[in-house]
């Protein structure tokens, strides 16, 4: 239906004007078309170095065209741009590290996405997700009661693994308010249980909110920043209401970036800082290990590598901590090359995973770079602290016959940790 709607150039221009900044102007003026950004982009590398995949060209074909035509473009043009802005860039920002002027192609692509979103040009699944956030507060349309029930069920079931395991809901004045990716209650409730086990074992004073428990923010990628701001505000509000000291994001990449770095701007926080400190499971688990609050029976023995999610290790400050945590937990950690902030995107981010089946083939082609990186390490285990990367690497595993197993930190810690005697379930106590 929207296919027949005329394009509203004013709406597009309003987005461009809103995003018109001195740095955007400086970028447009300085780009010397040197091409240095090309080989930094995994899309370019995975698509046989086809020039159409080089970052600057993609920015030019989207935002550039919109600006040049002052928003007066046809639906057909918008559809073409959609395939560039969503299916050829994950906004991973690696290219800005390689550009002599630090031009942020990802930001330009993001503005282009916002422009297109005003015309309802956006991968369908991502648009539905915006709706789901508005109606349910989470991307998977889970009612709050169902979430709370899942937690109760997981706590009860988890008592077989850790005596008296609890998942406190809406507890006030805690140190940590832990929030999850709604994939967890929907498909992987074990994840919630395992996170709870780690925090319980570490003696953490923590809670989960019955409302505002969703950490993901896919509206950041659909280009609907109004909804993105609402999602973030709900999260902040929950923490403020419960007077939690910190918000801790589960092992999810973009959720951390949204809550810590972009969210403060969507919600107009003074100084661009979140009103409540935002941390991530990687940092939390790192501190438990470092402070000796979690003890291990032994380290993980097999060769294992680590996927540095772009949103944690490049757009977030967790590259080094991720590596350190790997060293603390594993005997034989083999990093991928390049890694940390220079890591390649796996092509799960930028909204790619939820874009669904239509885009799977593109995702598998572009993921080749990551598949090869993994293969080169020779490791059969890959630790992945991000849900979107997890889905992507599991898919790559099948596509490229990698023969690997994907793990998360909480899963690994639960497997390795040495529970104090009073936490061991009946029958396992040593006394």
């Amino acid at each position: 239906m929207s296919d027949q709607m005329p394009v509203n150039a004013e709406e597009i221009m309003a987005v461009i004007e809103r995003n018109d900044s001195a740095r955007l102007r400086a970028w447009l003026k300085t780009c010397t078309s040197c091409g240095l950004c090309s080989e930094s982009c995994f899309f370019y590398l995975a698509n046989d170095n086809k020039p159409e995949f080089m970052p600057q060209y993609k920015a030019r074909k989207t935002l550039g065209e919109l600006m040049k035509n002052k928003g007066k473009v046809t639906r057909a043009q918008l559809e073409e741009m959609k395939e560039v802005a969503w299916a050829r860039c994950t906004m991973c920002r690696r290219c800005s590290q390689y550009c002599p002027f630090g031009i942020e192609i990802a930001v330009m692509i993001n503005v282009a996405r916002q422009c297109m979103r005003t015309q309802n040009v956006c991968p369908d699944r991502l648009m539905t997700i915006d709706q789901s956030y508005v109606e349910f507060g989470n991307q998977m349309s889970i009612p709050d009661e169902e979430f709370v029930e899942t937690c109760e069920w997981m706590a009860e079931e988890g008592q077989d693994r850790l005596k008296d395991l609890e998942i406190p809901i809406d507890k006030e004045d805690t140190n940590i308010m832990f929030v999850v990716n709604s994939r967890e209650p929907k498909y992987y409730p074990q994840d919630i249980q395992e996170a709870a086990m780690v925090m319980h074992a570490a003696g953490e004073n923590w809670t989960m909110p019955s409302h505002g428990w969703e950490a993901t923010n896919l509206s950041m990628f659909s280009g609907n920043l109004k909804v993105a701001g609402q999602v973030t505000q709900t999260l902040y509000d929950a923490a403020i209401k419960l007077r939690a000291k910190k918000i801790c994001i589960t092992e999810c990449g973009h959720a951390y970036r949204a809550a810590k770095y972009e969210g403060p701007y969507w919600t107009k926080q003074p100084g661009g800082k979140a009103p409540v400190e935002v941390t991530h499971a990687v940092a939390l688990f790192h501190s438990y290990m470092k402070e000796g609050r979690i003890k291990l029976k032994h380290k993980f023995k097999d060769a294992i590598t680590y996927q540095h999610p772009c949103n944690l290790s490049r757009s977030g400050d967790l590259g080094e901590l991720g590596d350190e945590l790997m060293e603390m937990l594993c005997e034989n950690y083999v990093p991928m090359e390049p890694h940390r902030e220079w890591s390649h995107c796996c092509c799960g981010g930028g909204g790619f995973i939820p874009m669904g089946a239509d885009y799977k083939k593109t995702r598998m082609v572009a993921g080749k770079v990551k598949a090869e990186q993994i293969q080169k390490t020779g490791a059969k285990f890959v630790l992945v602290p991000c849900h979107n990367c997890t889905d992507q690497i599991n898919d790559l595993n099948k596509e490229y016959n990698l023969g690997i197993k994907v793990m998360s930190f909480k899963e690994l810690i639960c497997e390795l940790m040495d529970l104090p005697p009073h936490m061991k379930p009946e029958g396992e106590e040593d006394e």
Partner: protein
Amino acid sequence: MYAFVNGPLVWIAFAVLVLGSLWQIVSLYKMSKRTDKVYYDHYNPGAAAASVWAWLMPFGSRSWREHPGLTVGTFAFHVCLIAVPLFALGHAATLEFNRGIAWPSLPDAVADKMTLVFLAAALFLLIRRFAVPQVRIVTECKDIVVWVITVLPFLTGYLSAHKLLLDPDTMLMLHVFTGCLMLICIPFTKLAHVFLFFMTRAFIGSEFARRGTKTW
């Protein structure tokens, strides 16, 4: 004509260069105060300086290290581009003769060699534009125009110093003329990256530093 080119035009060119650049910098700065809150919220002078520095050094950034050929070409191009006009004996002598300012200079033979290095590097960059598909696809007409504007003063300078092609006086006039043209174009074309480089790098250095990562 000769008198105008070698006299007032030079002053006009310098005035346009200075005032034009200042105007660009001031207007962008003012705009940034309004539009780049994120930059002022997280401004990190150390990271900004480190980011600028790493990219000013050959092989100082990861990107330079991964592209050694282009790095050598780019640095040869830029070092000669700045050093030759600044320290050419002819320029120093002119300055001293007209204004009585003593200025350090390079021996003629060195400036001569550096001009050739510059021209070779420029040719390399031009060929690269057309030969490398990912560069060709983003190359526009204005990239070529800017290239020509930058190369002409060096070419004419070399030709006039060696009394080639045209009679030396005419060639010298062309040299001064094209030199002025380049100076005038700096603030208003892609050549503005001379000064904008520092702005954009300071921004990205700070922006990535706030996320605990590096851009070099």
